[in-house]
């Protein structure tokens, strides 16, 4: 009995200390707990699905890089250097897989947990705040993105597709991209009500993937289409990764980093607000 009393006392003490901190109602400083829960679920879930996430971009690389590459020969990168077609699309595929992984985790998974498993309701009924939940979920998406990026790089290096040491920067780059999409995706998902609306997310992802300078330079489009594409997050992601992996690094890349920083912060703000409105009245 005394053990239980001790535990209750310390919980109360922690709660009291936290009460005085600003923002206590949305953040208890224990996002780690939400992350732990995901790890537990992951251990008993289907490993193949999670770990095979980086297989898909490899298929694309083989098929487009080498298959179509044979038909195309080479292309010139942003700075006018000729590069092998496979080396040109590889960074785009890495950026896309970071996006896809993050979006999958933060939309389908989050939607399921919100509406079917009622997981957030359960979590928020404890001392966890909405920001803990949001960071926990997004942190999980990042971890996965990191693993995928490392796996992808490990395959690309022996294929001779990484000419520069700057390419290592593409790994944190992928995590940044995943962070942006995950926080944004979770914000959107928290506002959706039916599975049907979820389909529309795919409806925007596919054209973004196809048109964001993934497979060929934007220069074949008229100026106004180029401007639209340049406003899309995936274009910034691809520009960033391509610059790192081809070694064309300049201060101008900070624009892309800034773009994602804004995305991350905006996403977190909206997610926290929405979760608060939904579950904490």
């Amino acid at each position, binding site marked *: 009995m005394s053990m239980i009393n001790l535990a209750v006392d310390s919980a109360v003490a922690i709660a009291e200390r936290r009460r005085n901190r600003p923002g206590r109602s949305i953040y208890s400083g224990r996002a780690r707990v939400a992350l732990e829960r995901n790890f537990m679920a992951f251990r008993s*879930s*289907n490993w*193949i*699905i999670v770990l*095979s*996430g980086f*297989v*898909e971009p490899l*298929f*694309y690389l*083989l*098929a*487009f890089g*080498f*298959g*179509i590459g*044979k*038909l*195309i*020969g080479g*292309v010139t990168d942003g700075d006018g250097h000729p590069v092998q077609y496979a080396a040109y699309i590889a960074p785009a595929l890495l950026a896309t897989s970071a996006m896809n992984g993050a979006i999958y985790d933060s939309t389908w998974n989050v939607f399921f947990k919100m509406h079917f498993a009622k997981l957030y309701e359960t979590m928020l009924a404890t001392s966890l705040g909405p920001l803990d939940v949001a960071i926990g979920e997004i942190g999980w998406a990042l971890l996965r993105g990191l693993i995928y990026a490392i796996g992808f790089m490990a395959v690309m290096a022996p294929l001779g597709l990484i000419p520069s040491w700057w390419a290592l920067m593409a790994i944190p780059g992928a995590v940044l991209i995943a962070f942006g999409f995950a926080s944004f995706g979770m914000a959107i998902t928290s506002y959706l009500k039916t599975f*049907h609306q979820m*389909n529309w997310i795919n*409806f925007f992802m*596919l*054209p973004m993937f*196809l*048109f964001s300078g993934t*497979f*060929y330079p934007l220069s*074949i489009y008229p100026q106004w289409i180029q401007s639209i594409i340049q406003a899309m997050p995936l274009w910034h992601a691809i520009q960033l990764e391509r610059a790192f992996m081809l070694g064309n690094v300049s201060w101008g890349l900070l624009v892309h980093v800034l773009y994602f920083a804004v995305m991350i912060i905006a996403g977190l703000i909206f997610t926290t607000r929405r979760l608060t409105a939904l579950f904490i009245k």
Partner: protein
Amino acid sequence: MSTTTPVEMPVHKSQWQGSKKLVNVSRARNFAWLHVTEARLRNMMKWWGSIAAFGLGNPVLYLFSVGIGIGALVDANGGSTQLGGVSYLTFLAPALLTSAAIQAYQDETSFPVMEGFLWDKNFFAMNSTPINARDIVNGVMASAMVRTLVTVAIYEGVLLAFGAITFDVALPMFFSAILAGAAFGAVMMAVTTFVKEDDGFFAIVGRFVIAPMMMFSGTFYPLESMPSYLQWVGWISPLWHGTDLGRTISYGSPQQPWVTMFHWVYLTIWLAAGLAFAYRQVAKRLSA
């Protein structure tokens, strides 16, 4: 339910006739598969907006990005010599059409099975009426065909608008695409019946079956340009057989008559085997 319900409310206003009089058993049996199709189509009609949007959006997006975008690079590089002398767009069109048919069939054979056995369990509801396992398979396949017909028709319209195919080949290409789709769909349906738990089955199929099939079936480049250790994917996949047929029909890509014949036969065998497999599996699952 209100507590003030008058208890003397009649069960039925009209005369209870009884099923012996009401149900025409032989009629119910003869049209059983059609009733399943009808139900599936009714369900599909709830999504007709999405179906139309995806049906139109998909070809437009792929033709603009891959067909015209990558096509510009290929054609500028003189790649058409490797494509039998046609433009990349023309080369790509039959492949995209076939893969659209396969995707439409995949949607309409796998999701209903998940719904029927796992999510709503409505196959069990159907099976408590005069409907049999075989009727369910046939009915689902027929409704998938309707959906695919619509998808392929839209696709061909877009291809015509892009000048990727000519008008006179539209009809024969219809057949090759639908057959390839049906062949894949029947097997997909049978395979989906094995799913006992909704634990990422679609993610696995997507990554390890659909994606490699799309990538390595000579869809975006000639199958021969792949290393031989990857070419077997194309030889197995109905997508390649359908695509190769489509290319012969569309722009007369050179082919021995026996090869053409073989494609038709191969796809038909897939379809027949898939159906037989699905009949068996659905019956097994319903009676378990």
